[in-house]
């Protein structure tokens, strides 16, 4: 169910953005927004199917503790 | 055109959003909690007593129409539940109460004596943590069981919790018990040196023939060490405590009349303030408590003309002596117990920040050994509508 909702959501966004850009032949815009959308999709899809996405805060915390101590 | 259609669709969709969301609470699905009583049973379980409002009854029987629809019905419903913790007990209440309990209108929290002796902080954690309970609710300690206090009815008020709330506010008139909200209590519980105190409530028997057998009455101050109840101050000592803290708002001071020792004179406290000055010489701690008070001649039962400079002066001195006596009664008891109710520790922190960490470590002993000077400056300003009593003796 959740997977379906996420797929639907991202499909809607893609359908809303891509045709206009294709028509105007704005290729750089199209590539950038597709890449961003792909990142967003990966992040949300992984969460929806139950994969533990690593928390970036933990990495930053580790780095800073390493540098300050 | 496309745009316009989109806007129309959005407008049509709006009402569905406006109806509310997950956490909506309709009045007809709620039971409004007015007072909470917390007791501890022998096996360590929490016994929770909730006073729930019955709105229909209140509407039916209040105001001019009295004796109408809901004449005989009670306007509150008292529910008692048991649980491992307070929250657990609250949720267990749903096995008896069909509606969801709403705590945001809660006026009073009463804690039983047994529970208070075991420590009040764990019992109040929920009240502080949960966003539904108010920090401005009044807190009392029951002599005996909190359940009895919550269950007790009141002659005047349809909702007994309202009566308890008014009792808390009425302490201003006598200053013989403190007025403490959950917020005040949180502030004093967090302190490392000073200890909290709360007003007490007890049930007293009423004369035969009245409809309500027992009545709730204010009785002095419950005193805590950290969060555990250790003892009680009576009315006089409670006012002594409030004098030092500068929290006396009003009250009556009864003194013996000059020139007629057996007759009494009542002086009304109009305003009072206090100043605590901590001193430290060679590691010896001395605290000076200065209390300034202003009063009126409220009533005299003697026939002496008191409005002469000499007698007025004598009255002021007697008044100061009574205040002094009240303060030292409270101080003696507190020092005997080693409980800093007067925020002396805080005052030392403010004046001697460098030495304070050392003092804090062993504050209980330090507090017991503080030498205290009491200075009372009591004035009388007004005499009321009459100067001499109507049946004044001729001189």
């Amino acid at each position, binding site marked *: 169910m959740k997977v379906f909702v996420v797929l639907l959501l*991202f499909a809607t*966004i893609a359908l*809303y*953005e891509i045709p*206009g*850009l294709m028509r105007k032949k*704005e290729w*750089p*815009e*199209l590539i*950038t*927004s*597709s890449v*961003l*959308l792909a*990142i*967003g*999709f990966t*992040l*949300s899809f992984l*969460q929806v199917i139950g994969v533990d*996405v690593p*928390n*970036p*805060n*933990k990495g*930053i*915390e580790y780095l*800073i*503790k390493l*540098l*300050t101590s | 055109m496309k745009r316009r259609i989109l806007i129309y669709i959005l407008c049509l969709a709006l009402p569905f959003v406006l109806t509310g*969301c*997950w*956490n909506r609470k309709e009045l007809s699905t709620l039971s409004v909690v007015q007072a909470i009583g917390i007791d501890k049973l022998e096996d360590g379980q929490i016994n929770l007593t909730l006073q729930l409002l019955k709105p229909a009854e209140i509407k039916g029987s209040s105001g001019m129409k009295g004796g109408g629809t809901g004449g005989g019905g009670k306007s509150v419903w008292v529910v008692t539940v048991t649980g491992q913790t307070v929250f657990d007990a609250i949720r267990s209440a749903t096995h008896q109460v069909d509606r969801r309990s709403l705590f945001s209108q809660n006026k009073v929290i009463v804690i039983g004596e047994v529970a208070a002796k075991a420590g009040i902080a764990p019992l109040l954690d929920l009240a502080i943590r949960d*966003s539904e309970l*108010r*920090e*401005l609710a009044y807190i009392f300690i029951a002599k005996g069981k909190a359940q009895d206090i919550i269950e007790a009815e009141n002659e005047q008020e349809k909702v007994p919790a309202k009566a308890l709330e008014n009792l808390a506010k009425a302490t201003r008139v006598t200053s013989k018990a403190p007025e403490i909200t959950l*917020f005040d209590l*949180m*502030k004093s519980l*967090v*302190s*490392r040196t000073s200890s909290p105190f709360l007003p007490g409530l007890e049930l007293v028997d009423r004369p035969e023939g009245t409809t309500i057998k027992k009545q709730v009455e204010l009785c002095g101050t419950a005193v805590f060490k950290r969060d555990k109840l250790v003892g009680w101050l009576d009315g006089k000592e409670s006012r002594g405590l409030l004098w030092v803290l500068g929290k006396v708002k009003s009250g009556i001071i009864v003194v013996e009349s000059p020139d007629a020792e057996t007759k009494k004179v009542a002086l009304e406290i109009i305003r009072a303030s206090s100043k605590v000055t901590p001193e430290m010489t060679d590691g010896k701690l001395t605290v000076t408590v200065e209390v300034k008070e202003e009063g009126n001649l409220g009533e005299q039962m003697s026939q002496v003309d008191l409005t002469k400079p000499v007698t007025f002066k004598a009255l002021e001195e007697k008044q100061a002596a009574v205040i002094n006596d009240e303060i030292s009664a409270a101080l003696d008891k507190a020092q005997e117990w080693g409980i800093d109710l007067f925020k002396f520790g805080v005052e030392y*922190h*403010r*004046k001697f*920040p460098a030495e304070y960490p050392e003092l804090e470590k062993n504050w209980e002993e330090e507090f017991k050994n503080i030498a205290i000077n009491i200075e009372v400056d009591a004035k009388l300003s007004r005499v009321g509508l009459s100067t001499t009593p109507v049946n004044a003796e001729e001189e």
Partner: protein
Amino acid sequence: MIEGGKISYKQMILLVFVSRIIGWIAFLPVILASPANQDVWIDCLMAAPIHLIVALPVYLLFKKFPNQTLYEYSQAITGKIGQWVVGILYIWFFIHMAALNLSNFSEFFTTIIMPETPSLFFVITLTLVSAYAAHKGIEVLGRLSEFIAPIIMIALIGVVLLLVKDMDLKELTPILEKGIYPSILTGLSPVAQTVEIIGLAIIFPFINDRQKIKKVYIFTPLLLGLFLFILTISVIALLGDDLAKSLTYPFYSIVRLVHVGNFLERIEAIHVAVWILGMFIKTAFYYYLIVLGLAQLFHLKDYKPLILPTGTIIVSLSNVLGQSIVELREFISFNIYTWYTLFFILFIPSLLLLTATIRKKGERSR
């Protein structure tokens, strides 16, 4: 030109003000920052001067490159590769900040008002509204903040005035118990939270009058310092520092304490309303910084197609960050968060400024 809009210096100050103050009216983390005693109000006085120092590199960089945003002049200073490194770092930083912001938003809501509502609902709603504002560009953001900032100021000052009668200024003593140095260090904490300093490096070129930048540079810290001081002093004077430290939302807790007579109480809804308004501006501002950066970095003609895709990243990232409130608090604490943000708002700009000076790039400032 990607952004054709211009905003006035007042709008710029207010934009930063709203975006910053809104975090403080919920968390007020300065209370928790190291010596953490009754002296925090002195730390708040320290904040404005420290802010001026920290924002200096950004200001000087603007003097050298008055027509360019941070993303653009990093190319002029360090070349193509440098621009990519700096650009990606900052875009990550703003995405991270926006996501953090959204998790805070949903945390506040689920704690205070609607504990049963899924937090994703709040996050998505706010993101959509902010996306619309960001879509409309900097001019709309400026006007919005000019409209909303007075509402926030009046609400905050009104609440504080209602509470004055309950305050005990003795709670602020003893003064400087642990000396002045911890206070200066703690003064760094609210400044380090002011991510908007680097946000200004990006919106400075959009001011309508270049001469007024100096005013933005000077008045922003003063206004923020003043309000931080008012907030902190009222929290400490009402609660005392010990209690304030143990509360999740100190300022919200004191708003709950407002009671005037028997008729004016329970006005915390005002706090919530103000919080939503401010959060909207803040999220939209961060949002705008991200999409503008992306567009400038990839040399796009327009940033608008990037808005929704970026939104999906922010929302899903905020969901990752907000999973555990305890971990989130650990990250926002003084020891971690301060150094993380200082790296971006002070270290990188200083490095850029140094390189620009050595390589003699940009206009000579007179």
